[in-house]
C-alpha cells in the first residue's frame, strides 16, 4: 500500500512553527489528533536547571525521522499523518523542545503511534542534551547507544 509522506519532519533552531505542524496533520480521513509537547524542565536529578542546549547531527537525524514516519504508518495505518519537530540550540526552562503530532482515523492508533514515536525518538534520534545549572555548572546527559545500520 502506498505510504502517505505528507507529514512534517524537521529540526529547527527557531521556535516551533505550530501552524505548519497543524497544517501537516490536517486530513478529512482523520478523526483524532494527539499533540505531544516536550518542555524544558527546571530540575533534573536534584539539580536546578536553568537551560538546555540541544545539538543534532542533522543528516542522520533527518534519515531517522523518515524511518520513524515509515514505521508509524506501518503501526497506525496508511491514513495516519505525522509531524515531528525537534529544537536545536539553547532553550530556557519552559520552552518547547519537541513536538510530536499524530493524526489518525481513530484515537487508538493516535495514542499508540504517539507513544511509539516518542520512545523511538529518544532511542534513535542523534541529538544530545547539555543541561546548564543555576550554580553555573553544566553537563551532557547520559544517553542510549545508537544501533548500527540506520
Amino acid at each position, binding site marked *: 500500500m502506498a505510504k502517505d509522506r505528507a507529514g512534517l519532519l524537521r529540526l529547527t533552531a527557531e521556535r516551533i512553527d505550530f501552524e505548519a505542524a497543524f497544517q501537516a496533520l490536517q486530513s478529512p480521513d482523520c478523526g483524532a489528533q494527539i499533540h505531544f509537547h516536550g518542555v524544558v524542565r527546571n530540575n533534573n536529578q536534584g539539580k536546578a536547571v536553568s537551560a538546555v542546549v540541544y545539538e543534532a547531527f542533522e543528516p542522520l537525524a533527518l534519515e531517522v525521522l523518515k524511518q520513524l514516519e515509515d514505521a508509524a504508518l506501518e503501526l497506525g495505518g496508511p491514513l495516519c499523518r505525522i509531524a515531528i519537530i525537534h529544537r536545536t540550540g539553547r532553550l530556557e526552562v519552559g520552552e518547547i523542545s519537541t513536538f510530536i503530532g499524530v493524526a489518525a482515523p481513530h484515537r487508538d492508533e493516535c495514542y499508540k503511534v504517539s507513544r511509539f514515536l516518542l520512545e523511538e525518538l529518544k532511542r534513535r534520534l542523534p541529538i544530545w542534551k547539555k543541561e546548564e545549572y543555576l550554580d553555573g555548572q553544566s553537563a*551532557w546527559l547520559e544517553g542510549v547507544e545508537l544501533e548500527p545500520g540506520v
Partner: protein
Amino acid sequence: MALVMVARIKLYGALRALAQDGLVELPVTGQTETTVMALKQQLIADLQPKYPNQPVDELIERSALSSGARVFQQHETIDLLQPLHLLPPVCGG
C-alpha cells in the same frame, strides 16, 4: 615531498570538548581503509592521554561511527578519507 593523508572525525555531544572545534585529525599512513573498531582504538590512543581523568575510552567505545545518513557496524571496513562523525549515546526529546 610525501603526501600526508588525514582522517577527519567530527565529534558530537560530550565528545566535542575533547578536540578543538570538535574535530580530530589523524594521520593516515599506509592503507586508507580500516574497521570501525580499529579506528575507535586509534582515537582512544590519541585522546585518552590528553584527558587522563576522564573516561574517554568508555565514551568512545559506546559511540557510533557514521558517514552521514548511516551508522556503521563495528566490524565494517570504512574509507578513512570520507567525512566521519563519532556519535555518543543519544538523548533527544
